[in-house]
């Protein structure tokens, strides 16, 4: 098989075709969080909801563990999986911290260290 392998960039997973095949069920579940019904159903019974979308066991365990890096490894796309954030009360800085082994404050400080253009702030 000769599917193009994307460049190796440390700490970066290209969400490409094979990853999208692998992650389809989990991304479809996250996508369903667009609707309040979907979010409520997940909160009411996470296991049943994961089963409905046919997540595999590894994906289920990552959801149970709130393991963001694990979810990405299992084919989750950040665009869809971030939709679990508001349900869990996590914003993208919290997500950043979770993935980089930092507290949210440390992650924010890392962002700030790369800052520009906030002269009037």
């Amino acid at each position: 098989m000769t599917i193009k392998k994307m460049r190796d960039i440390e700490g970066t997973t290209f969400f490409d075709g094979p990853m999208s095949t692998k992650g389809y069920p989990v991304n479809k579940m996250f996508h369903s969080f667009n609707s309040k019904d979907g979010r409520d159903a997940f909160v009411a019974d996470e296991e049943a909801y994961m089963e409905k979308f046919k997540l595999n066991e590894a994906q289920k365990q990552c959801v149970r563990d709130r393991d963001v890096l694990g979810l990405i490894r299992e084919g989750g796309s950040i665009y869809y999986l971030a939709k679990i954030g508001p349900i869990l009360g996590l914003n993208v800085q919290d997500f950043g911290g979770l993935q980089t082994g930092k507290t949210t404050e440390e992650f924010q400080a890392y962002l700030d260290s790369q800052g520009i253009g906030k002269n009037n702030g």
Partner: protein
Amino acid sequence: MAKIVGGIGSSHIPAIGVAMDKGLEDTPYWRDFFQSYVPLRKWFNEVDPDILVIFYNDHGLEMFLDKKPTFAVGTAAEYENADEGWGINPIPPVRGETELSWHIVNELVENDFDPTVCQEIKVDHGLTVPLTLMYPAKDYSKVKVIPICINCERHPMPKLSRSYAFGQQIGRAIESFGGDQKVVVMGTGGLSHQLDGERAGIINTEFDLLCMEKIVSDPEYLTKYSLEDIVELAGGQGVELNMWMAMRGCLTGKVTEGYSNLVAPISNTAAGIQLLINE
């Protein structure tokens, strides 16, 4: 003939929508960002465009992986926004412009582009946030919006050269459309950021400034970068530069910079704000 008077580059992150909903524009975190829109809006209000073409990407509202277009062009008379789960209040429906949309689609297909054509889609924050930045009072009922969506979520994605050529073809189509409509095009998203992985949080303002310089004077220069280069340089979601390239492609006249600023961090991104005048 319709006239493209200018192009605008703008961020489109949900946090901006939330900040506007909550009235945080003048807080220390947001002040510089929102101040950058004052000169943009001054120009925009003076132009008072009839038609706004917005290049955006859909982050999982309408264009899911089940059936994901590389390029999608809206041809509807109206577009609705909806709950995306981010906690932004959906905005009232946006007016479409069917005639010019179909003309654009005809010219694209005639010239070997393969768009997905959308007569009924919901538009996400990628479109609504930039629109609301132009119309903070949400008084956009007069302008007609043409949504043009570019896949930035799943590889393979269009190359920068393809998005630029796509924009060029759309620019030629607009300029060949009968009437005296004033058109503004927006490229939204970016600039450098990465949301996922152990490398989350990288920002590269040096590269962003290079992009903003080249996009004025030498957009072809940027087509030398592969998307893998962009991910390496500007982070995983830096590929949203594709929308800026398409916007720039539309500007077929003499292009000068009317305004430019880069503010970071805005959420996890470097937010580019740019006005390009097309003469």
